[in-house]
């Protein structure tokens, strides 16, 4: 059970931190304390996370590894990943689950990220979340 929980946690972080091949020489996401601000309908929410070397392993891999990482996290929730794509510095994919889909299109640099996440529940209007991330420094 703990293993699945951990996978879920990593998957969530990956949703906001996965990056692109062009940044691979540096790092797509540097380890440390990150702050993410998500805005929905003009209402913003900020949270911080400590991104560890273990978590970054799954984030800074090549495209195939990133896709596999996302698919593993999605499978733990009986969801699938579709339309995985890397275009320049922008990554996009859709997670398809029973009753809803979740799409992520995010542009990255090593210490920051910015993207649009869209949740579509069956029969409901889509919810669009604008997400900005930035690395604050070492983990606290």
């Amino acid at each position, binding site marked *: 059970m703990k293993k699945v929980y951990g996978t879920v946690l990593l998957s969530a972080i990956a949703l906001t931190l996965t990056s692109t091949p062009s940044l691979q020489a540096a790092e797509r996401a540097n380890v440390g304390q990150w702050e993410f601000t998500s805005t929905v309908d003009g209402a913003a929410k900020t949270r911080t996370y400590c991104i560890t070397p273990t978590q970054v392993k799954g984030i800074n891999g090549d495209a195939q590894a990133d896709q596999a990482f996302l698919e593993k996290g999605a499978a733990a929730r009986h969801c699938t990943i579709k339309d995985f794509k890397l275009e320049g510095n922008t990554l996009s994919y859709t997670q398809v689950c029973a009753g809803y889909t*979740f799409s992520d299109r995010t542009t990255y640099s090593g210490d920051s990220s910015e993207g649009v996440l869209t949740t579509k529940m069956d029969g409901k209007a889509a919810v669009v979340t604008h997400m900005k991330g930035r690395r604050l420094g070492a983990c606290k």
Partner: protein
Amino acid sequence: MKAFWMLGTLLLSAAGPALRAQAPPAPIEIKLAHGDAAETQTRDQLLRLLRTYDLNPWIFTRTLIIDSSPRTVPHSHPVLTLSTRHIKDDDLLLSTFVHENLHHFLVQNREKTEAAKKELHAVFPKVPVGYPDGADSEDSGYEHLIVCYLEYRADKEIWGEQRAFQAVQFWMSDHYRWIYRQLLEAGYQIGPIVQKNGLIPGAPSEKPAANPHSSQ
């Protein structure tokens, strides 16, 4: 407790999708247990959230109390009561407000709820009882699998997957820990049971059970 009620009301200006064919919703009456600063702030916070988001699909009781007493634990009955714990976190206050309303929804759909709980028992033969992993009783644990599933679903409809996930992550480390964890690990099993039994608020099949002995 000393009867010192501060009264605040909000007339929701538009009916939600589930209420479109009905009369406009009645005002929400917010009572403050002591009228202190924390309760006033929480009331204003909640009113702001009610103006920001269309929460009508998840409102099933029109009266609530905000109580700053340190021992206050949010609860649904007999009167929906919120603590002042989440003054600095809109998402957690809103999530709690929806959670407690959903208990009223299940009371209004008692037969369907009992049927769903029976099916959940087959999937989860054992549920933890007691804080911090479970609810007060096994029966309440099964009810909370439904309530928490619907809460997570509502959060996703209101803020999207990412922020809903953040809220669940918080609850998983706070209370009902096992129950909230099941939403992520076994939501694919809980969801179909809830849906099959007509317990999705606002869904076309959702109608209060035709039970003359219902408490509503």
